[in-house]
């Protein structure tokens, strides 16, 4: 597959950009924050996003979706990174949907995916128990009970935690771990939401003697680790796409500033030290574009093992977007430090995404391990 967008993809991207810059620019994020929104995103906007068909992109046609693929959804995530649009797109339309598509039984898919496509079900992956991402560390347990399972334990850093209808939970089940679909309203589920840096609402979720039917099991019993890894790799690539949008937008805003702002009687963009840093960052962002596109295309090509490329993308994007966000503030100077100005939001959202599903150190380590060193 050529490493370029096709006509259709470019049109999708352009339409997304139009929509987001009109309906959900950064001021939308500010408004949600200042209104004390308890979900971390706007239901009204979410309805519009659903209307645009974005939640249906990954869902197969048989389940009421468009079956359009990962590259398309990645472009939407990239664009929503540019506008910092808060929504459960990453958690539900990509990660949640992918979990069902990869691991769900026909019945589960038939039940959940149409609701995902219709924007009526918010999914949230709940796999972390420690403050650093370590998806193999698991103290939550599900034991056989009657026809189903009894779940005990707890998860932290669950994104969209307050809004989620269903958690996708990893838990130890004798040998190996398994994934379960756990309704947020089930007895014994306690959700403790907390506001994150970027205004999104994460949650700590605890499970106390939660009774689950047999149909709650996602994928094969005891073989959840492989499924979780694959779902996580998709989530990582999605987060990388969103980080790409953040990096580009923060960088472009900064370049505009350098082209307009005068100090000492000259445009500050004429200072060679800033020029060189800008040029270096530009090169890094170009690298990022290629990696994200390649990773998305490989998902579309059905490559089963994306681990290496997923870790590569997450490590590279986390590093570069972080750099772009920091340089954006530094090059804007004092005004960049004020809340009144928008550029700081890029740093905050970036920090969330670079941490989510493993930060650059996690993925450097994983990449090396996957490559045998």
């Amino acid at each position: 597959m050529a490493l370029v967008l096709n006509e259709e993809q470019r049109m999708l991207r352009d339409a997304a950009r139009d929509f987001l810059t009109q309906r959900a620019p950064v001021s939308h994020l500010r408004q949600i924050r200042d209104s004390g929104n308890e979900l971390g995103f706007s239901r009204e906007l979410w309805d519009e996003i659903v209307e645009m068909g974005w939640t249906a992109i990954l869902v197969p046609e048989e389940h009421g979706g468009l079956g359009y693929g990962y590259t398309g959804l990645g472009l939407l995530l990239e664009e929503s990174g540019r506008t910092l649009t808060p929504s459960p797109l990453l958690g539900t339309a990509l990660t949640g949907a992918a979990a069902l598509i990869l691991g769900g039984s026909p019945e589960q898919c038939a039940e959940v995916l149409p609701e995902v496509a219709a924007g009526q079900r918010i999914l949230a992956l709940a796999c972390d128990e420690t403050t650093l991402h370590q998806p193999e560390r698991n103290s939550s347990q599900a034991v056989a009970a009657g026809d189903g399972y009894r779940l005990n334990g707890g998860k932290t850093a669950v994104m969209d935690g307050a809004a989620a209808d269903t958690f996708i939970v990893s838990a130890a089940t004798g040998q190996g771990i398994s994934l379960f679909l756990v309704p947020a309203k089930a007895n014994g589920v306690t959700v403790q939401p907390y506001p994150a840096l970027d205004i999104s609402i994460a949650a700590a979720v605890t499970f106390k003697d939660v009774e689950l039917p047999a149909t709650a099991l996602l994928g094969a019993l005891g073989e959840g680790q492989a499924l979780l890894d694959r779902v996580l790799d998709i989530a990582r690539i999605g987060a990388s796409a969103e980080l790409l949008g953040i990096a580009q937008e923060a960088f472009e805003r900064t370049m505009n500033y350098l082209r307009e702002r005068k100090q000492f009687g000259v445009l500050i963009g004429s200072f060679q030290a800033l020029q060189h840093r800008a040029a270096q960052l530009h090169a890094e962002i170009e690298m990022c574009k290629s990696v994200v596109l390649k990773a998305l295309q490989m998902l579309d090509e059905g490559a089963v093992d994306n681990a290496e490329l997923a870790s590569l993308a997450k490590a590279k994007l986390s590093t570069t977007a972080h750099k772009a966000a920091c340089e954006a503030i530094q090059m804007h100077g004092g005004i960049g430090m004020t809340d009144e100005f928008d550029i700081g939001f890029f740093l905050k959202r970036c920090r969330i995404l670079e941490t989510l599903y493993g930060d650059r150190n996690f993925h450097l380590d994983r990449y090396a391990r996957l490559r045998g060193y």
Partner: protein
Amino acid sequence: MNQPEDFRQAVREWLEDNCPESMRSPLPSEAEACWGGRNFEFYSEDQRLWLERMAERGWTAPTWPTEYGGGGLNREEEKILKEELARIHARQPLISFGISMLGPALLKFGSEELKQQHLPPIVRGEIRWAQGYSEPNAGSDLASLQARCEDRGDHFILNGSKVWTSYGDLGDWMFCLVRTDIEAPKHKGISFVMFDMATPGVSTRPIRLISGKSPFTETIFDDVRVEKDQVIGTLNQGWTVAKYLLTHEREMIAGSGVSSAGTMSVSKTATKTIGTDNGVLRNTPLRADIARYEIDERCLELTIERARDEVKAGVSLGAAASMFKYYGTELNMRRQELLMAIGGNDALVWEGDASKDGDTPRQWLRSKGNSIEGGTSEIQLNIVAKHILGLPG
């Protein structure tokens, strides 16, 4: 009092008698610091007493001449005083921009009348001062300031605004750079003036940072009357005073190093949070970054020590202050980045114990301003290149 050791003994005894017991422990929070001023409310009678007693001896401004209320100490005596205060963990009796920033300018450039008028109340903590340098849109190019004093015969009328005024809302008086000659080239035509912030037409507006609340304000001047005798140095020569104060400020920042005193080391925080395998931190890429950071932190400490010893040996710090300002702030930013990486998910939230109620992310976000305030890192590097390395242009 010829012998330093006699002086030390005398200080020690005086402190024993005069420093209230409750003032002999570290501040529980910055909010309880003593700033003085017209409207200051003391947190305790001891705090008031401690300020009063220290001010009486002039030890709130130990090296200032006694005729202006200062302590009249020489450098060695000042050092001894500091050491003795530190020995009993005595709190700073007064934090004051009047002492740290305005005073040095007044002493060097002020007329006798101005010194008599302003220095003693500063020493006693009666007037709280605010600084008015930066302006919206001026940024690093301080001299492009636009706030303007128009000559109205026996007084000036000031219009314009300043930003980044620390505690501008709490200040009694302001010292301020203004343009007094709009015809003159940029660096000429600037004067260093002072006025009472209660004067009609002065208003302030808080500045919120990306890290949340801040002590900074914007200060707006709307036909504010400024007396003509409240100019430090020669009219239109304020830039000389400003440059002197900027260097002074930079040296203070330079001397402070990384603000890690009393806090847990980065590596300890990491081992506690992340854990070790056979004594090796579990996250090896992070471990290497921490080692690089701690090495540089120690290097900076040693270099500050060396610079101090060189100053004692008669070598001037000079433009080296810019190097320290650059290195120290960049290092602190690296520190905050590492603490965020160590904090992981917990460091991403504004509430809860794990992020110390958002203290970790707030300090991290706030640190992004370190390389901007007090002269950007770029400005410091320019200064090092030109004034230390002698590079052209």
